């Protein structure tokens, strides 16, 4: 069953329509990626899921319709978001950043335990836990964004271009951890990316967006073989 499902999803900023009715789904326990160039509407898609932009059409999460609900309430349903630009609280320490991630968490268990858990995934954050978030490097801030979202113990993790501006080694490291989290904690993932090579390597389902529309979709392995995608996005 799909954990997240969008049908005819539209979104607009003011009078400008950015999504023109797209369909996509994230399976329970699956990893879905949405690919596309700058301005295709990838970030807007994530914002629509989080209730950060006006939408029309339908979005369902775990069977219930979630359109028009406040971001703060959607977080409480278990939707964790590592946003575009990483959303670091630059003047707060790394550990305070992480504690904020657990602010709206449901269920028991201590925050300390969850801190240990994410420090286990990202040891570099443990080394820097007393440091202000703004002093971290780009890659470390991206790890912090993912770790902060994990503190929620999310059912669904939204990742907005985690590869942007990072060295290939760092990207690989982050995505390796995402895969581990997905397998071991059964967290479903919706990943939007420009970097088709890494995204298709990770995902089981993929969509290609162009100017606010889905132009191609299918199993990730199939899109990887597609000639058009290979030429335009994979470069071989």
């Amino acid at each position: 069953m799909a954990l997240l499902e969008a049908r005819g999803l539209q979104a607009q900023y003011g009078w400008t329509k950015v999504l023109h009715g797209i369909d996509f789904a994230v399976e329970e326990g699956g990893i879905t990626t949405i690919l596309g160039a700058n301005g295709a509407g990838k970030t807007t898609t994530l914002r629509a899921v989080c209730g950060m932009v006006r939408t029309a059409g339908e979005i369902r999460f775990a069977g219930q319709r979630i359109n028009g609900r406040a971001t703060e309430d959607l977080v409480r349903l278990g939707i964790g978001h590592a946003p575009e630009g990483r959303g670091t609280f630059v003047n707060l320490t790394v550990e305070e950043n992480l504690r904020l991630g657990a602010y709206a968490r449901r269920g028991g268990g201590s925050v300390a335990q969850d801190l240990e858990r994410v420090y286990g995934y990202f040891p570099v954050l443990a080394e820097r836990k007393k440091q202000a978030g703004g002093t971290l490097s780009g890659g470390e801030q991206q790890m912090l964004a993912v770790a902060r979202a994990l503190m929620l113990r999310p059912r669904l993790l939204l990742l907005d271009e985690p590869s942007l501006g990072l060295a290939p080694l760092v990207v690989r490291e982050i995505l390796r951890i995402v895969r581990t989290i997905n397998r071991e904690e059964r967290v479903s993932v919706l990943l939007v990316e420009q970097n088709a090579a890494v995204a298709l390597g990770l995902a089981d389902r993929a969509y290609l967006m162009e100017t606010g529309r889905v132009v191609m979709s299918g199993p990730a392995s199939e899109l990887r073989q597609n000639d058009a995608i290979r030429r335009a996005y994979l470069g071989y």
Partner: protein
Amino acid sequence: MEIFFQQVVSGLATGGIYGSVALALVMIYQATDVVNYAQGEMAMFSTYIAWTLINAGVPYWWAFFGTLVISFVGGVLLERVIIRPVESAPILTIVIVCIGLLVILNSVAGWIYSYIQKPFPSPFPPKPIMLGTVVFGAHDLGAIGVTLVVLALLYAFFRFTTLGLAMRAAAQNPVSSRLCGIRVGWMLAIGWGLAAMVGAVAGMMVAPIVFLDPNMMAGILIYAFASATLGGFTSPGGAVVGGLIVGVIENLVGTYVHFIGTELKLTVALALILIVLVFKPSGLFGRATIHRV
């Protein structure tokens, strides 16, 4: 030399009051980026509430804490009802709304309680404390003590509680805060409530000295602005230290610079604001903030 110490001591006492109003200003500024010009009148109004309770026979400390609760609720309501609708308006709009609030609170207080000065009790014994030849007023010492306690409590609240952390987060990065599930609007309202409480403490500490009337905070607000500017608008501790410094400078200049005396004292505060803004705009303890435009 005795006169000097005496002036320093009484300067510290009034400085404590300036510091606590400055603290309230800084808190709202930190939480919402708004300078609340109505802060003084809010404190004045809270003090009238305390006066009403005490006159109705409520024991002092019950009235004190009762006033804090009422002020907190009042501050939250003001933010929800008056500031909320203009929250995303340009800064000038919010400033004008705050000034409007100042005028309204002042007139309403005058209308309900009249403009006649009223005595307000001090919780501290009237007996002065002598240390050598320097006289410490018990109320003055008490007021400084209360200010420091308030500062310590606020520090602990923001530093060690989850709600305090969420409020700092909401002030810094509203978008990320919402993604963490923090209800940003309510954090701002709670910030106003806390500032109203801090202001109420300042009002109840200053009223025994200057007497209670609707205009009692007008001069104090200017000193508080000088304190917050000197300490740095981004530093709560700086606001209190700034207050103490302003109180001492005010007294010393009033005593030793004869043409200033008591009449021109307020000018000292304004001159100080100007000097700080020209030479060190971020204040003694403040951080220079960078705004992306």
